[in-house]
């Protein structure tokens, strides 16, 4: 029995095509501007001098991120009306019928997974395509990825398969929430912070 669902993201394989983002929007019929899964384009560096030669020191990679259905969901702990709950299999839900729209959870989540939906006047977020999962299917984002850069499953299985890396730049310290997330880092990720990398597409995410 699954006790904690999670996502695997292979940053080394992601091309930044945003098929995952679009598949999520399509499946969940999200309003324009509401993104349950987002692809961050991380870029930095430039040129650096090595001896007499200038060489490029560019870092560039993508990070596909949705709600990580954390083991310690700080959004739910912060919610004053208990509108955010966790299922037995680890999937974290927002009950839009209980949400008062205070939007405090948007600040509490370090992955900025909670998004305000003007249609319902409540917050909303990735629900792991729970109806598809319950029917033995796959989350829309995972199914849509042409590079197979996304996977899902029980965290213990994902750890066995992919290791235990849960943070690359610019993700927050995983100790904050214990996210259901495993990452295969891009080779540039280790040098991103020292080379002043930043998210280049804030207006899209």
């Amino acid at each position, binding site marked *: 029995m699954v006790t904690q669902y999670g996502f695997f993201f292979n940053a080394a394989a992601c091309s930044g095509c945003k098929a995952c983002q679009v598949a999520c929007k399509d499946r969940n019929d999200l309003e324009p501007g509401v993104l349950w899964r987002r692809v961050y384009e991380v870029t930095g560096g430039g040129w650096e001098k090595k001896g007499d030669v200038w060489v490029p020191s560019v870092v560039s990679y993508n990070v596909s991120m949705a709600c990580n259905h954390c083991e310690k969901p700080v959004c739910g702990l912060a*919610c004053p009306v208990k509108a955010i709950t966790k299922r037995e299999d680890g999937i974290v839900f927002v009950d839009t019928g209980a949400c008062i729209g205070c939007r405090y959870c948007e600040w*509490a989540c370090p992955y900025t997974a909670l998004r305000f939906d003007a249609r319902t006047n409540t917050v909303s977020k990735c629900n792991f395509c729970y109806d598809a999962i319950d029917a033995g299917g796959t989350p829309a984002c995972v199914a849509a990825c042409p590079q197979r850069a996304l996977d899902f499953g029980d965290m213990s299985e994902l750890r066995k398969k992919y290791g235990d890396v849960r943070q690359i730049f610019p993700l*927050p*310290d995983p100790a904050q929430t214990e996210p259901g997330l495993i990452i295969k880092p891009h080779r540039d990720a280790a040098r991103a912070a020292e080379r002043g990398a930043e998210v280049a597409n804030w207006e899209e995410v």
Partner: protein
Amino acid sequence: MLKEWPLVAFTIAGQTAVGAFLLLFPLLVLSPAGTAWSSAARAKVLVVWGMTFGLVVIAAGLSFFHLHHPFRAHRTLANLRTSWLSREIFFEIAFMALVALALLLVATGHTSGLFLRAVMGATAVAGLLFLVSMARLYALESVPPWDPAYIGLSFFLTTAILGAMAMALVTGSPSGDRSYLSALWTASFFFIAGDLLIAVFVTPVYGVVGYRPAPSLRPPARVSRLLYFGRLGLLAGGFVVLIKGMAANDVIAAGGRGPGPLLSVAFGLVLASEVAGRFLFYGLAPRPGD
């Protein structure tokens, strides 16, 4: 940033209310039990607590404006176990109810008994916890620019400054004695001096746009640096006018009604600086998609 005006108004009104209550509290609790207060003292207490109650009711009312489903707000106490927001609302309601009870006791002349002192003590504790939970709920690891120690200090200073100044303003009536009012303005002087030092030396490190102490998926702040300098200018202006007012012994207006014009202007400038500072604070943590 401007969308957060209900939170700006709520926090400032709530902190002013708590500050006014807490600054009057030691004077009252030290008065000997068993002796009734003079009518002048009673009038002063009624005015200050009336203002406190009015402000906390206004704060509560304004807080509804940041809810998108205000009719579901009755459930906000459902998560006292883990949510600082629930706790903040709980202590606000407790503070409001206890101030109302204390007001009722004083208005009906029950000023000599131990019961009033017990109610005052409970109100002070509720006010402090309201303040602590207000600061604690913004101490979020997920918002790196919000430094917990800086928030606590900043909220405490707003409470002290606006509480002291607002109390001095409303008790600047013919029944208000000059030494008591002078003490309030002097306290305001030191609190504002402290706030200025922090605004000059600490805020540029922790509270100005561009501060990114840790990797984050939160978009960078889009608030103008001019807000910081505007806030600093208003606070410095308020400080200078306060000094002038104190030097001119402007504690009570010439006609005996209310405070003198200089100190009223000083309060206006300091209040404006606190409002600007609070907008800056919320502007440091933009919500994605906004």
